[in-house]
């Protein structure tokens, strides 16, 4: 029986049980579940077990967008159940593969339905389809489901709630765990449907729904009447169950955490494994379109603030776009794309050709611009379309109640992207409109004049503005590690004339890098697929640790002290000053 139950949809809570900002503790077929309603009304049904140390998620906190485990504060996103934040590693983005086990959920007839492995859609329940229903108080019974169902077959109730006026009923088993009972007094008709939830081998919950929704005092009287009758029934069943044979508790299999979680991710080059549909496209500001991408099939992987995706366009181009929405916010990615006047076909395609309903190929989200959350204050500096990653950050900081300011430099009001989100961030947003480059520098000098420990700057915008930010911050004593940049592109003039040798320490391989070829290309030619994204020294994806030798940096991703330290290299553009480099791959 347990096996066939696994393929059924079971009601495991009532809609009323799942109040906002609450986590309901449930169980089905021996498996404990944590159920929570997000602020967008999505009902999450998850294994009641934090992936980290196995603590019950039901004692955690539901903040409307994420569920936070009470033990070490790991946070998991609405819908995807992907981990968005690990407080012990406030600087790092959690691995994309850290994701709680989810089960399907449907909210219908005032009940929450789920199942271990339900086959097909939730079937229509005719009796409940055409009327307003009143969900009765659920009754937990310490008895096996068969025993409960047997007694429910003899359930009698009074339509008026009057204990002297019980009605004979006709009964109809709908399937192996539900029954409908109909009373037909004086030509009228009233049906109640009961579902018995198999909690464990010796535990069940009776969930009833009445095909009528009386109001006021009658409603309360009806609820009390059924509660009284069902409690009486429960007491009888429990007594009887004491005489039954002892039952072994059901054992739910807990999925092992994938071994890959403890391994270093295998580099795989530029891949676009995800397919998304353009759900919405709209003009959000002058020359900027907003795009909402929704998954086709599997839910989209969870992203962290600052993350970007590669969009592989039908014309063969690969472009990086930051995600503007906060983690846990819906089952979609939101991008802002500016039409570049010198577009080589990337932004032009998304502006002019892409339409709502089109399918695009994208990479999984990557985060080379991770947001620290162990800060006393964060200053976000956006120039033009550089607002996109900072919007995701600002929403996250606002939700976490961390002190921040978002400074948005733009030509004019019409150039402000996503005004509806900016309004929501209200007094933390400062607009700087129509400033000349010199005025911008002056303004930056005011903003960055005071540095304190644990303050951080995140800046994204045109190259000259980022360079100005870098110099001004340095002048005011900001250490390099407190100032974080995301460049649109690398404007350094690349010199690929040198030739040198690279030894790969882990692969025990030495290769020649001739002039005109990058380290990345040479590695690829020799079957070593390193992960990469922008391939122009801006995004940081193809970074590798340097063990020996002196790199010749030509990227804009590393900061000055990182470049000076010489311990890391962007293999897509940077080369060697020495004749030999030893890399940690």
């Amino acid at each position, binding site marked *: 029986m347990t096996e066939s139950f696994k393929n059924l949809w079971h009601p495991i809570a009532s809609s009323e049980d799942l109040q906002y*900002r609450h986590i*309901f503790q449930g169980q089905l077929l021996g498996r404990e579940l944590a159920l929570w309603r997000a602020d967008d009304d999505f009902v999450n049904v998850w294994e009641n077990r934090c992936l980290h140390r196995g603590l019950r998620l039901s004692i955690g*906190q539901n903040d*409307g967008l994420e569920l936070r485990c*009470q033990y070490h504060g790991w946070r998991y996103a609405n819908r995807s159940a992907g981990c968005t934040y690990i407080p012990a590693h406030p600087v790092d983005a959690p691995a994309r593969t850290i994701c709680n086990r989810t089960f399907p959920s449907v909210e219908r007839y005032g009940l929450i339905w789920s199942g271990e492995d339900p086959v097909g859609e939730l079937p229509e329940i005719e009796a409940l389809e055409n009327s307003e229903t009143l969900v009765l108080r659920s009754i*937990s019974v310490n008895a096996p489901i068969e025993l409960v169902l047997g007694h429910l077959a003899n359930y009698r109730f009074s339509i008026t709630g009057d204990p002297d006026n019980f009605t004979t009923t006709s009964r109809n088993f709908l399937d192996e765990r539900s029954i409908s009972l109909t009373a037909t007094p004086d030509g009228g008709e009233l049906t109640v449907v009961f579902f018995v939830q198999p909690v464990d081998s010796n535990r069940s*919950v009776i969930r009833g729904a009445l095909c009528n929704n009386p109001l006021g005092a009658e409603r*309360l009287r009806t609820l009390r009447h059924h509660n009284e009758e069902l409690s009486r029934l429960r007491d009888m069943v429990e007594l009887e169950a004491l005489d039954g044979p002892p039952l072994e508790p059901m054992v739910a299999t807990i999925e092992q955490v994938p071994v890959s979680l403890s391994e270093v991710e295998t580099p795989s080059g530029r891949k676009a494994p995800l397919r998304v549909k353009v759900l919405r496209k709209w003009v959000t500001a002058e020359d900027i379109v907003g795009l909402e991408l929704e998954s086709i099939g599997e839910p989209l992987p969870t992203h962290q603030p600052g993350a970007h995706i590669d969009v592989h366009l039908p014309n063969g181009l690969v472009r990086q776009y930051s995600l503007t929405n906060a983690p846990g*916010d819906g089952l979609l990615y939101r991008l802002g794309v500016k039409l570049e006047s010198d577009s080589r076909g990337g932004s032009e395609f998304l502006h002019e050709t892409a339409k709502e309903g089109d399918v695009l190929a994208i990479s999984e989200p990557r985060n080379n611009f991770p947001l620290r959350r162990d800060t006393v204050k964060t200053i976000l500096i956006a120039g033009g379309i550089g607002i996109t990653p900072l919007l995701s950050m600002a929403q996250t900081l606002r939700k976490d109640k961390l002190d921040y300011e978002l400074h948005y430099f733009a030509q004019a009001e019409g150039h402000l992207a996503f005004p509806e*989100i900016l309004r929501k961030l209200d007094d933390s947003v400062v607009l700087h409109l129509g400033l000349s480059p010199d005025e911008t520098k002056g303004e930056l000098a005011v903003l960055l004049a005071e540095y304190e420990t644990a303050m951080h700057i995140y800046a994204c915008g045109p190259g000259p503005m980022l360079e100005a930010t870098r110099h001004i911050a340095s002048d005011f004593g900001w250490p390099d590690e407190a100032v974080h940049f995301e460049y649109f592109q690398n404007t350094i003039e690349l010199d690929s004339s040198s030739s040198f040798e690279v030894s790969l320490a882990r692969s025990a391989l030495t290769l020649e890098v001739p002039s005109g070829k990058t380290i990345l290309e040479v590695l690829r030619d020799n079957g070593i697929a390193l992960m990469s994204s922008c391939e122009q020294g801006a995004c940081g994806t193809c970074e590798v640790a340097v063990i020996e030798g002196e790199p010749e940096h030509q990227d804009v991703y590393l900061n000055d002290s990182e470049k000076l330290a010489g311990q890391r290299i962007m293999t897509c553009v940077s080369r060697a000053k020495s004749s030999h480099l030893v890399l940690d791959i």
Partner: protein
Amino acid sequence: MIKLYDYVLSVNCYKQRLMMSILDVPFESILVDFYPGWEHKGEEFKKINPLGHIPVIDDDGFVLRDAHAILIYLASKYDPTGLWYPTNNPELIGETSQWMLFAEGTTNTASAARLHVNLGYEFDIEACRTGAHRLFRVLDEHLWFREQENLDWVCSGEHPTVADIAIFPDVILSEEGGIARMDYPALRRWTDRVKRIPGFETMPGIFPASEPRSLPREGEVHV
């Protein structure tokens, strides 16, 4: 200032800390070496409470023992609104007394089971657990019907009373005594509501709730 003879892991001492935090009454905690020192059973402490248990308060020379009695005293003396111990409403004060007596039951079953598990007290653990489940079943049904009438608390007023403070700690720590609350969804929701009372305090094993949902303002988009 009020002195509270206190032990951080004691559920009955926590009831006093919680009440005083909510009423914003400053107090000084006099730590008693309850475990493993059994200081409350010693000759010195018996001069303060001959029954040899905590909590005890000393409010400027006025000494009072027994957790639920102290709650009544604190609310009567330090709550100018009169809502926590509503003596001016006969029905409500009757209900409050009824549920204060119920709290004696939850203390002697659910919290006793916890003492057995955590500190090795010799109680009949199965009797404690069965008794706690019997009371939780009654309370869950009661609170479920309260919700149907849009009422949040144990007593029928719109404001919580000392009865909520007396019962809550026994309930929220029950799992430490091996008493699951999965079968009591309305009881679990009520514990969230208690945690959202302004001035709420935690103790080891009791965690804060998330913030309640505020409705979006006009024209605001969900982001």
